[in-house]
């Protein structure tokens, strides 16, 4: 017992925890712990009502520590820290214990084991909290400047919106011209706007603004420093090096269209093209549908090429989202050009979600024929006597084989992550299983990465159409603005600390610290190490280096970890 007054909340998560863990048993066991003076089970600990209960309890019982046993700390640490603060408790005297992702959901067949484990984890949380101390967040300056990497529709829109907020922008584009993929596509769904026109409108805005600097044929090659004041280095195609100091980094590097291999649905045969190639063809010949000088009377579209793959190990299991709408839209464009052209759509599912359903209806009304194929028997595309033959088993005709002899086969290719290794390396960007950049959480922390001050927007994060890319880019702008415009940010105070009485100044921590965050200071007669809280990143590389155990991380001290270990193995009573 340490004499602390700790409250514990055990969350049922509406059954997500209590279906697999006996939450009342956990509460009763933890109530026996010496320092625990309050314990409750809540159906949803994060709900307003439950938070109010906890706040009342903290005030009435004058709690000096609180432990919430619930979901992953990734989800609700901020929620409960704010709750502690509202109750007048220091937010760093709150501990979240993960009994959902790392207990109830992982041991669904072992209720007894999961309950025992929850008790042990809760005890470790109490042990850690008993040794916690009030901490104050470190305040550092943030520069009202950002670098936006990629000048596609997402990057251009982000640059203009940041400039509107008063953040100066360095907009860095690898290609010789800005605009990204959208500039290639001609007429776009849903409003028939022309891609080039959209890009030009934004480019005019960019050029009008003094606080946006556009760099073409340029890449970001290095990053160091901290959130609010990063040092980044740009390199131009001629090798010129440009150093910049920026507060945040917005990555808008987009996607690549999937490139089918030769022979995949007949790709490589005369008359078999991808959707991007077809879009470019239409943009180049807006008056008449011809291919290599030949009139096109019949078109067959094969959907889901390079998307929703089910082969074991395929990284492209996702739906590319834009393509059903883009293809239905292009069918209406072709129809407008020449209503006598026959159009066959060989699809798996039509995913013209939301208002894009209207495009599908319009294509149907224009005479487009939709044939549903199953994933097990995909269509075949072959060449016979100089012409193309497409065979498909139509699921809506009980699997009957339908044969089409089109002039043109359009492979509706999906989106794939763009190869961008040097940038990933320079920024240490997190990459997901699908190869796109990974945000911290799709709902709770979209556009944010685990790297503070580095945001990912547009199709670099995953397949998106223009409206979705722009929405995500504006979300990134809102996050960047919120971070930079205050002029400062309060950093986590969980950094390293030296216990001067134990320190013998052997220099080992200085050698271990990659950030130069340890100074040598005089203390009375001796010299000891001292941590610079702004430079320290709180990763703790110095901790194992110190032979005297004089240096440790706040929140992860030797005493805290040891007492957590003891609590975990303590015999169940």
């Amino acid at each position: 017992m340490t004499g602390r007054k700790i409250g514990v909340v055990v969350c049922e998560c509406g059954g997500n925890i209590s279906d697999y863990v006996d939450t009342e048993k956990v509460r009763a066991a933890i109530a026996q712990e010496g320092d625990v003076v309050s314990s409750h089970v809540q159906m949803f600990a994060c709900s307003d009502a439950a938070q109010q209960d906890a706040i009342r309890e903290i005030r009435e019982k004058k709690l000096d520590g609180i432990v919430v046993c619930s979901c992953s700390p990734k989800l609700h640490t901020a929620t409960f820290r704010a709750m502690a603060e509202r109750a007048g408790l220091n937010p760093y005297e709150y501990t979240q214990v993960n009994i959902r992702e790392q207990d109830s959901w992982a041991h669904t067949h072992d209720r007894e084991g999961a309950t025992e484990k929850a008790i042990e984890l809760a005890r470790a949380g109490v042990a850690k909290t008993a040794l916690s101390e009030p901490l104050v967040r470190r305040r550092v300056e943030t520069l009202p400047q950002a670098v936006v990497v990629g000048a596609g529709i997402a990057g251009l829109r982000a640059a203009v919106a940041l400039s509107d907020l008063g953040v100066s922008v360095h907009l860095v584009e690898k290609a010789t011209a800005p605009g990204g993929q959208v500039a290639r596509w001609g007429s776009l769904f849903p409003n028939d706007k022309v891609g080039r026109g959209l890009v030009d409108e934004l480019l005019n805005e960019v050029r009008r603004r003094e606080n946006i600097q556009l760099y073409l044929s340029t890449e970001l090659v290095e990053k160091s420093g901290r959130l609010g004041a990063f040092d980044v280095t740009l390199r131009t195609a001629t090798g010129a090096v440009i150093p910049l100091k920026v507060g945040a980094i917005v990555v808008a590097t987009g996607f690549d269209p999937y490139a089918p291999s030769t022979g995949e649905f007949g790709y490589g045969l005369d008359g078999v093209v991808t959707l991007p190639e077809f879009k470019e063809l239409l943009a180049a010949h807006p008056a008449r549908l011809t291919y290599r000088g030949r009139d096109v009377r019949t078109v067959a579209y094969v959907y889901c090429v390079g998307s929703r793959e089910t082969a074991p190990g395929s990284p492209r299991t996702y739906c590319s989202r834009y393509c059903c709408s883009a293809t239905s839209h292009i069918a209406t464009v072709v129809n407008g050009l020449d209503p006598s052209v026959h159009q066959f759509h060989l699809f798996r599912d039509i995913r013209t979600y939301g208002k894009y359903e209207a495009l599908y209806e319009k294509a149907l009304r224009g005479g487009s024929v939709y044939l549903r194929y199953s994933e097990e028997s995909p269509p075949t595309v072959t060449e016979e006597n100089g012409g193309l033959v497409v065979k498909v088993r139509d699921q809506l005709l009980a699997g009957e084989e339908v044969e089409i002899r089109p002039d043109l086969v359009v492979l509706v290719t999906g989106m794939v992550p763009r190869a961008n290794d040097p940038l990933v390396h320079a920024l240490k960007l997190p990459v997901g299983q699908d190869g796109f950049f990974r945000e911290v959480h799709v709902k709770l922390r979209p556009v944010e990465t685990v790297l503070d001050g580095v945001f990912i927007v547009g199709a670099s994060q995953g397949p998106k159409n223009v409206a979705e890319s722009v929405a995500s880019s504006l979300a990134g702008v809102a996050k960047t603005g919120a971070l930079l415009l205050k002029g400062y940010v309060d950093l986590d105070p969980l950094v390293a600390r030296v216990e001067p009485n134990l320190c013998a100044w052997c220099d080992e921590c200085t050698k271990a610290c990659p950030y130069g965050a340890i100074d040598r200071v005089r203390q009375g007669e001796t010299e000891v190490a001292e941590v610079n809280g702004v430079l320290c990143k709180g990763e703790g590389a110095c901790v194992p280096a110190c032979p005297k155990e004089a240096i440790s991380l706040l929140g992860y001290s030797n005493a805290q970890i040891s007492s957590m270990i003891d609590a975990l193995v303590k015999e169940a009573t």
Partner: protein
Amino acid sequence: MTAPATSVGRGPRVLVFSTNAISDMGIDLAGSSHLDYPSGVEVIPVPCSSGINPRWILHAIRAGFDGVFIAADGPECSYLSDCVARTGHVVDQAQELLRQNGLDPSRVKTSAICSVCSEPFVSHMRQFTKALAGLASVPGTPSAVAAGAA
């Protein structure tokens, strides 16, 4: 009634040190995907595997854990480009400490667990708990006392 800390059904006790930003997410994902692993596996998250004190590992084994697994960030670590080498050094030091104390160094293991490495994590846990089950209990720990009493 006092029951031994190791319930038979939960398998050997494994302490996992995960990292807040990356490997803990991979472990979370294993749970979110309902990939079951033995409930004797318990996690203490820390900021970075390079900051693990080898003495914590010795302490854990002496206190009653059968093994310690460091779920490292590997080359993905956002703090340190040489995190792999540093974490390797922590493991070497911990193994040396175990050896000096007459304990089997194979009780410590490490592997990089990325933020989506749910399946690799579970397979590491299955293999590690299996290997640990084959080792004799550490003298003086609760599981050894329980085994002696049985």
